[in-house]
């Protein structure tokens, strides 16, 4: 029985702004949520706060100078971006990279996947409401890996280590032992985070059933990486279109069943373990010495007038470089296919109908890197 007074009360949906400054660690991203009580009715994301004209800048850089820019675009999975960029040029110039360089590239890229996923675990715990414990468990492990990277390449975050035709210089003498040490720490870290979060009932209640995407929806929105695999599509570039020397390693690709936030978390956790296994295999198979730069490399790298699309499986998805060259040593047009941008396109569909508190968790589960979204 509806009272007469009730029919005259007008309710409006409340717009809430989750502004460019987030307490979470995702970067400058703005979301305008329209909520009705506790449920989200509409989401309007605003991006572009971090656009720096990266692709245009790359047109003025030759193929050695541009590596630093690729780093800075995907600043959490730098080696994936560098690998993609240099493989695009190598494919155009048909350069054969020596074996040792390939192995070192794979080792460093997989260790970088570990750092990126550790970062995700830390930030995701905070989004779910853990006071900061997951963050402080993940970051020391990340530090150990970054110290190794500093010993090898010289920098802790912006490595600029890969070059067209191989690496800039050879790794240190104790590289293999250091890698084993680092892997031990990483396994301990993965166990800690697993103990802390995975079976925690409150965490499961926060994450299960939230933001679910079916396989068809995931493919329709162009998702890639762990988000696609969590929705049940067993597609991994390292398995289906192997690049570099990934066809030499045996590993497993985790695929989820429900496509919700919890599955994405589990997929990333499992990927970390698989990365550890790949690094161990690569360390075993790696030749003890050999050149790290391709021989007969011209001093000025000139690409023939052609175009190429190279892609790698970055921790976030498929990171691609579409390179158009008109001869000369600088690209004519360089487009970076960013996985975070494509993953973000599904935000509205995932969030509408969920609770307000879930919007933060869903955004966290996408693991976006704003520099990549905005380039």
């Amino acid at each position, binding site marked *: 029985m509806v009272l007469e007074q009730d029919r005259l009360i007008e309710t409006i949906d409340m717009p809430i702004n989750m502004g460019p400054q987030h*307490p979470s660690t995702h970067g400058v991203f703005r979301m305008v949520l329209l909520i009705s009580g506790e449920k989200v009715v509409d989401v309007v994301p605003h991006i572009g706060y971090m656009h720096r004209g990266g692709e245009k800048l790359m047109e003025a850089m030759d193929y050695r100078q541009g590596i630093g820019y690729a780093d800075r675009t995907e600043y959490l999975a730098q080696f994936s971006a560098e690998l993609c960029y240099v493989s695009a040029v190598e494919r155009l110039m048909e350069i054969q990279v020596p*074996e040792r360089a390939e192995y070192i590239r794979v080792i460093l890229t997989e260790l970088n996947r570990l750092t990126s996923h550790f970062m995700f675990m830390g930030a995701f715990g905070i989004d779910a409401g853990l006071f900061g414990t997951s963050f402080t468990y993940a970051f020391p492990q990340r530090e150990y890996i970054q110290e190794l990277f500093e010993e090898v390449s010289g920098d802790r975050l912006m490595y600029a280590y890969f070059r067209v035709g191989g690496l800039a210089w050879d790794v240190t003498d104790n590289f293999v032992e250091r890698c084993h040490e680092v892997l031990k720490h990483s396994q301990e870290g993965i166990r800690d985070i697993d103990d802390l979060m995975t079976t925690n009932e409150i965490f499961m*209640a926060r994450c299960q059933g939230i933001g679910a995407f079916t396989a068809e929806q995931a493919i329709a929105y162009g998702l890639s990486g762990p988000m696609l695999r969590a929705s049940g599509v067993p597609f991994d570039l390292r398995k289906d279109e192997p690049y570099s020397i990934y066809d030499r390693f045996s590993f497993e690709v985790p695929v989820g069943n429900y496509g919700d936030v919890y599955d994405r978390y589990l997929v990333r956790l499992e990927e970390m373990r698989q990365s550890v296994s790949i690094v161990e295999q690569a360390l075993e198979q790696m030749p003890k*010495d050999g050149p790290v730069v391709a021989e007969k490399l011209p001093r000025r790298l000139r690409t023939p007038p052609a175009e190429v699309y190279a892609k790698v499986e970055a921790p976030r998805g498929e990171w691609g470089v579409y390179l158009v060259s008109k001869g000369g040593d600088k690209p004519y047009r360089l487009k970076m296919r960013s996985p975070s941008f494509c993953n973000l396109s599904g935000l509205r569909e995932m969030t509408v109908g969920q*609770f307000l508190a879930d919007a933060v968790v869903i955004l966290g589960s996408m693991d976006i890197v704003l520099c990549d979204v905005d380039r």
Partner: protein
Amino acid sequence: MTMLLAAPAIDIDQPFLNAILALIAITLVMTVAVMYATWYERKIVARMQYRLGPTRTGPFGLLQPIADTFKLLTKEDLRPATADFVAFEVAVFAIFVPAFLAFVAVPFTANWFVSALPLSLIYLLAVSGLSFIGFLMAGWGSDSKYALLGGMRAAAQLISYEIPLILAVIGVVMVTGSADVYTIILWQDKVPLIVWQPLGFLIFLIASVAEVERPPFDIPTGESEVAGGVFIEYSGIRWSMFQLTSYVNMYVFALLGAFIFLGGWEWPFGTDWGWGWQLVLTTAKMALFVVFYLWIRASMPRMRVDQLMSYAWKVLIPFALVQIFLNGLVIVYDLPDIALLVTSGIATAVFCWLAYAVVRRGGRRRELQMVPVRGSGRPAAVLAQATEGSTA
């Protein structure tokens, strides 16, 4: 009987002056204690997180709360232009004052208390339940959407979790036959009440965490999308009053739990050992509770509001009623005490098992499908190089 036992330690003839002095002593001591609660919270939670807490301000960071107080005192006192004046200003006091009012009826040792109320348990629970009005006022008066959301959620949470709290305490009242904290403590001279009422203890523990709004139940103050909730528009000393209130509440409930479930200052030594030991016992038991609160703060994510509500109404209240029912059975049919122990123990086990089945959706731990990728291993050329490098 309680009046006969009550011989206040400060021996001044005028009872009014006596009470005033005791109040001042309590207020000062509790304020400093609460300031230092922030210190050891930061240290303990930091240790759980691989890091040190404050170390630079004074030895071991002991002067950190003082530094914080100075900073907050000298901060600019912001007030939104469109805030409702009365609601905004009075909200702070509406939250702060009831917390301190609770200390009037708390007996720290056998002789140290401000006033011996014959119904002190009811007084304590009533007074600590007053603060939700302050949250509503802060939420409404701040004229901010986040504050409004936080205020609504705070009110809902506080009211919902009052009920299991009170029901758990009613179980204690039924067993001991008195609603006076002093008498309950004396009743426990042989065995603390946690033995007879484990289920009640658990429910009290969980509901008290929700009442003081600590994680994992800190929706009003931590969420509203990680932005501070009800306290968004407050700055400087007002905000610090809110924070201190949170710790004072924590102390009140820790003390209450220590008294009615763990035996207070009576168990195991009794009143024969003098006020020094009694104080040590009280503090130790209170510290156990406080460490537990800090521990779960560092370990658990926040619950979502609807999950919080369903947990209170669908899990805690039924089990609290079960405990009362069992108490009633034992008392009415005059069963031996051990029956209460056994039945309560079974009910506790069932509670623990059932606890999250209501809240959790989707079932147990998930398995992922793993798609294997067979690598081709080392090619021969690389194998030759690898072994050659090792022999060379």
